[in-house]
Each structure stands twice: as C-alpha cells, then as structure tokens.
C-alpha cells in the first residue's frame, strides 16, 4: 500500500496538535528581550489559567531583583538577556527531502552511534514514511499508559488537562526564587514533560523508550514535573543520545520530582547539546535546576546523568530526603573536551531519619576544558542515623585541562555518617602502550579506558541507552590525545 508521504506528515503534525490549544498559534514569536509583557505574551499564547500567569509574573519580579550567580568555576562573557527571544511558537524545522542535505558531520556521528537510517532521518528532520511506524508504536504506548492511569504528556498539555495536579506540585520542589536561572525559567518556561504515576502503579515501560520515538522540541526553557504517587515506580529518560544541534545559546531548565510514600523515581539523562567548535566558539550555555523530593517515608529518587555536550554546564541534580528511610542517588559522568566547562554535582539534603544517599561522580577532562564537581551533603539535626557515601573521581587526558572538586559537608547530628572519597588519575602511557600492543589504536584505547572508568555509572542507564552512551563517550573524546 502506497501512501503519499506529504499526507502522512500532515496527519502526524495534526496529531501532535490535537489538544487544540496550539492551533490558534501560528508562527508567532515574542519581541526580543524580557519584560512583563513578554511573560504575559507567553502565558496568553499558551492559554494558561490566571494562577499560572501570576506564578510567572511573580517569578519575573523576583528575577529582576536577583543577580546572576558567580560562584561557579565557569568563565563566560555576560549573557545579554535583553537580546534573547524568549518565546517562539513551536517551529516547524525546515523540512529536508533527503539525508544528502544534512550536515555530513552529523551523519558521521549518527553512524558511529549506530542509529538506524530511518531514525537518522527523523532526528535530522527529513520527511520519512517511517514516521508511520513511530506513530503506531507511540499510540500503543499511550494506550498502555492510559490504561494504568498514568498521565504522561507535555507540560502545556497537562496545564489544560490536569491543572489541579500541576497547581498542587509546581514550584514545590524548586521554588520560583530558588536561584537566578530557576526564577528565569519560572517566568518564561516554554514546555517540557509532565508525568504522574498513580498510587500503586508500576509504570510498565521505560519512559525512555517512548521518548526516543517521541523526541520533541521543547524549547530552551524546559519545564518538567514528575510525580510518583504512593508506592509507584517509574523510570524516566530525558534527552536523546543523538547529537542535538540546537541553535539557542542559553538553556535554563527546571526538573522537579516528587516521590510520595514508598514511591521510586529513576531519572536518567544524556545531554549532548552542541559543545561549541574546537576553538571554543559557540555552543550551548546550560544552566539547569534539577531537584527531587523524597516526600514520603521509604521513597527513593535516583538521578543518572551522562553529560558530554554544551559549552557550559551548570547543573546539580539534588534530592531532599524528607521521608524517613528515604534514599537518594546521584550517578554522573561528565565529559569536557576542547574548551568546554562543566560545574556539576549534586546536593543531598537529609531531613528524615535513617535516610541514605550515594553520590558517584566521574569527571573526564580533555583538551583545554575545565571540569568541576561541586556537591553538598547536609545532615540536619533530625536526620539521625543517616548515611552518605560520595565518590568523586577525575580523569585527565592531556596536561592542558583541569579537574576540580568542591565538596561541602554539613552535619548537625552525631549519629550520621558521611564518607567522601576522591581520586584524580590520568590515562597512563603504560595503559595506552598495553592496548596498542594488542593492536588497539590509541583512539579506541581511550574509548575503552574511559568507558571502563565510567562503567559504574553507565550500568545505571536503561539498557538501550547504555550502549549508545558508551559510544558517545568515545566520540566526545575523539582527537583529544595524540
């Protein structure tokens, strides 16, 4: 059966907009710069309820009073907020008719990652009939989820569909005045994901699988809210291991996770945005606030991140361990090459009794890059008999890069135990010689050694992404030695 590809595409496009609140928005763009009017414009375009507009305005006014933080170990020219366009209606990317029109370097990377041809087309915006497959798979997933009462949709959609849930939880983990970038996001957030897992439900699929097919363009101020109701489980994967060539310079996202009694939320992310060129020109500035709260007893939140992209990364996925016996985990691999800079780590705030947290951070620096771990472990007075174990390892490739560790530990009780281990190592000439002698080229050897080094973190990723993430690590470090 032959179908006209154009019709299929139209169907698909319409399918995405079926909830209607997008339909009256054409290719509108907010005027350059940020004023109260910009905020009102965004809210109106999204047909938001009054309370959400007020939330945004409130955040905007707070933001005006705040100043950009300077404590991070990052150097960049001042960001000119009045030169940014804060809202562009969901843009249709320029449609390409075949892969021949796609940047060959991008195709080369796709191939190295082992991404199928059809998926390559989808990711780079080429019109394909393969979309049919994706759509049918997507529908199957949606039905499976709906049957269980799971709500999984875009943030804007959730505002229309389940406003009460959004209102109940929005900003409860990351208050709008939490920090400069959080305030900015709260004022102008574009879109993102919303996920609610009802009581006692174990989400039957990795939401990552869904994502891979559904990879959406969420804009530069992403807002995500995940709620695990009592005794529920979900594994959620943000991002895409394929290289996303986003032209927006500034990204400031917020992710909030709420885990109620005995709920478990596992959040994984692979971030591979444009890191700038080899001279350090261009690239994304990524200022993200990610935080989860283990609100109920015996709940668990786990963050796993693989960071290889962006010119600047400022990101500290954290867990507030409020419920007794709750567990927080943070597993991270951060790679910087050329002139990339990363200041990333985690915060574990222990409020409940017998709470446990683990931080495993693996930094890899190459080229002229700088890679910092920054973490806070806080044991409050009430958090008796709590434990933290932190391990922060740095691996250096070459002698022009930097690795830094800034651990902060605060304990207010006498029964908690906090352990911090840190190592710094280099890939030794002996290791390379050993690999070379077995016939392994230096480039492959570095890939092998780096993946071995990061194995503890990579094994936390959902299977289908772990393999790609491994390849991604090798690709990110290509040309870093020799």
């Amino acid at each position, binding site marked *: 059966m032959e179908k006209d590809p154009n019709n299929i595409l139209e169907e698909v496009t319409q399918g995405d907009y079926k909830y209607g609140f997008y339909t009256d928005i054409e290719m509108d763009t907010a005027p350059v710069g940020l004023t109260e009017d910009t905020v009102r414009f965004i809210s109106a375009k999204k047909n938001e309820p009054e309370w959400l507009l007020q939330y945004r305005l409130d955040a905007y006014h707070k933001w005006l009073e705040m100043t950009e933080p300077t404590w991070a170990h990052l150097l960049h020219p001042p960001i000119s907020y009045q030169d940014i366009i804060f809202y562009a209606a969901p843009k249709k990317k320029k449609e390409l008719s075949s892969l021949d029109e796609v940047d060959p370097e991008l195709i080369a990377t796709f191939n190295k990652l082992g991404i199928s041809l059809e998926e390559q087309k989808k990711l780079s915006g080429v019109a394909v009939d393969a979309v049919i497959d994706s759509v049918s798979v997507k529908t199957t997933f949606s039905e499976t989820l709906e049957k269980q009462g799971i709500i999984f949709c875009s943030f804007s959609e959730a505002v229309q569909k389940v406003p009460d849930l959004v209102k109940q939880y929005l900003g409860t983990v990351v208050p709008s005045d939490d920090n400069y970038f959080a305030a900015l996001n709260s004022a102008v957030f574009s879109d993102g994901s919303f996920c609610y897992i009802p009581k006692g439900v174990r989400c039957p699929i990795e939401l990552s699988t869904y994502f891979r097919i559904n990879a959406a363009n969420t804009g530069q101020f992403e807002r995500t809210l995940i709620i695990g109701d009592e005794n529920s489980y979900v594994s959620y994967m943000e991002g895409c291991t394929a290289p996303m060539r986003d032209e927006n310079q500034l990204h400031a996202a917020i992710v909030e996770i709420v885990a109620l009694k005995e709920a478990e939320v596992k959040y994984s992310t692979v971030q591979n945005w444009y890191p700038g060129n080899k001279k350090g020109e261009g690239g994304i500035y990524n200022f993200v606030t990610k935080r989860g709260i283990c609100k109920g007893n015996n709940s668990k939140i786990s963050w796993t991140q693989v960071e290889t992209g962006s010119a600047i990364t400022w990101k500290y996925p954290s867990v507030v361990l409020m419920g007794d016996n709750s567990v927080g985990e943070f597993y991270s691999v951060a790679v910087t090459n050329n002139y990339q800079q990363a200041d990333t780590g985690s915060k574990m705030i222990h409020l409940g009794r017998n709470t446990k947290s683990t931080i495993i951070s693996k930094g890899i620096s190459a080229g002229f890059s700088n890679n910092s771990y920054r973490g806070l472990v806080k044991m409050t007075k009430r958090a008796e008999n709590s434990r933290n174990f932190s391990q922060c390892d740095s691996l250096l490739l070459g002698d022009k890069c930097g690795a830094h560790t800034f651990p902060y530990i605060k304990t207010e009780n006498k029964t908690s135990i906090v352990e911090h281990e840190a190592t710094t190592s280099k890939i030794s000439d002996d*290791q390379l010689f050993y690999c*070379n002698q077995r*016939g392994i*080229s230096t480039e492959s050897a570095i890939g092998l050694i780096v993946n071995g080094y990061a*194995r503890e973190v990579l094994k936390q990723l959902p299977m289908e992404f772990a393999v790609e993430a491994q390849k991604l690590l090798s690709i990110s470090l290509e040309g870093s030695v020799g």
Partner: protein
Amino acid sequence: MLSIKNLHVSINGKEILRGINLEVKPGEVHAIMGPNGTGKSTLASVIAGRDIYTIDEGDVLFKGKNLLEMPIEDRASEGIFLGFQYPVEIPGVSITNFMRTAVNEQRKYHGLDPIPANEFLAKMEEKKQMLEITAKLANRSVNEGFSGGEKKKNEIFQMAMLEPSLAILDETDSGLDIDALKIVANGVNKLRRPDNAFVVITHYQRLLDYIVPDIVHVLFDGRIVRSGGKELAFELEEKGYEWIKASLV
C-alpha cells in the same frame, strides 16, 4: 621472520643497546638471558614499538617489513605479541571486551569483518580449556586485583587469543610459583607451530626446564655476547653471570 641488524638504542642520551644482531626464523624458540639491567626488556619494548627510546642506528625487519617505521598497533596486527613483565591494570574494562576489541581491531587491519559474538565467546572458551585456566576471567577487569600469577596467565591467554606469529615473553616467569610457571610454559608449548616463533626473555634457567629453546643468547651490557644451544643455559646456571663477565675481560 625477525631480523635485527646492528641495533643501537638509547634513552635520555644513555646508550642501552649497543649493536644487537638477531635472526629469528619460523618455528624457532629463542631464549634471551642475562643479568638485570643489561637491556633485555629494552629490546622487547623496542621491537613492540614503545616510543620512549631513541633508535640511534640499525634495522629491524619483520616479515621483510621495516618495523621501526610502523605504529605499535600495526606491529601487533602484523603478528607481534609482547607478554609484559608488569601487565597494567585497566579498571572497569572486562577481559572479554578488551580481547574482543583487540581481535576486531586486528581483523580490521587485515580487512576482515568483526568476529561474530558467539564465535568469539566459543574461541575464548576453547583457549581457556587449552591453557587449563579454570578461573572465571571473562567478566573481570583487565589485570585489576589479579595476583602476579594471574596476570601472567592472562598474558598467555591473550597470546592464545591473538595467535601472533612472533611472541616475545618478557620475564613472564618472574614471580611465578611452580604451578603457574607450568601453565605458562605449557601454553607456549601448545601454541608452538612451524609457522610461529617465540623469544623468551628470562633471568633464570628455570623456565627453560619447561620450554626448550632452540637457541640461547646471552645479553650483556647491551650486546649479545654469546649464542648457543640449550646447553648454554645450563652452563650459565651453573657458572653464573660472573662467568660471562670474566670471560669478556
């Protein structure tokens, strides 16, 4: 197979090898003996291609190709294997993964497709059995937390997997108990074929009780000062290196 002519090598301006000549033919086992610090390991490293040394003079041909102009990994793919005296640890990299990468990179060099996973695992199992290695190697990280004996056995295992035409074993016997020594020697004996060759570097004669060499060389002060049959090893064991030293004066 291997032809070394008048090889002079130095490190940081200090001359270590002062005119080595060595011919190794297919099917032969050569033993290189000598006191510590006379250049045995340097010779092994230079053949493998370690770049910390300066080649001042001389030629090294392998199967007629100029080895000195070849990158380390190409030498390996051409069939040179070095059993390390001190194998390094590569944390987090399983032996399976390491060996598969090595086998496939060597196949790529020869224009072959990667080995299918099941075929590879069968080959690993076959070599383990041949070498009578009972330990569960596959999922352990390369040399990480291995005892001295395990490291050396792992070197022999890798040699069996890669099937080199020339294997140089650099003091593989050092630090081994008698059982481990037998496994190592047994491995070499089982892998001996008319079309491959071994150069066994050792400080002691002990290993040569199990691996019978065709030719024994004595390396002293950067030169091969004596070559002979296996009797030379016994003589050396009996009279000690002082004997060589005295005979040179």
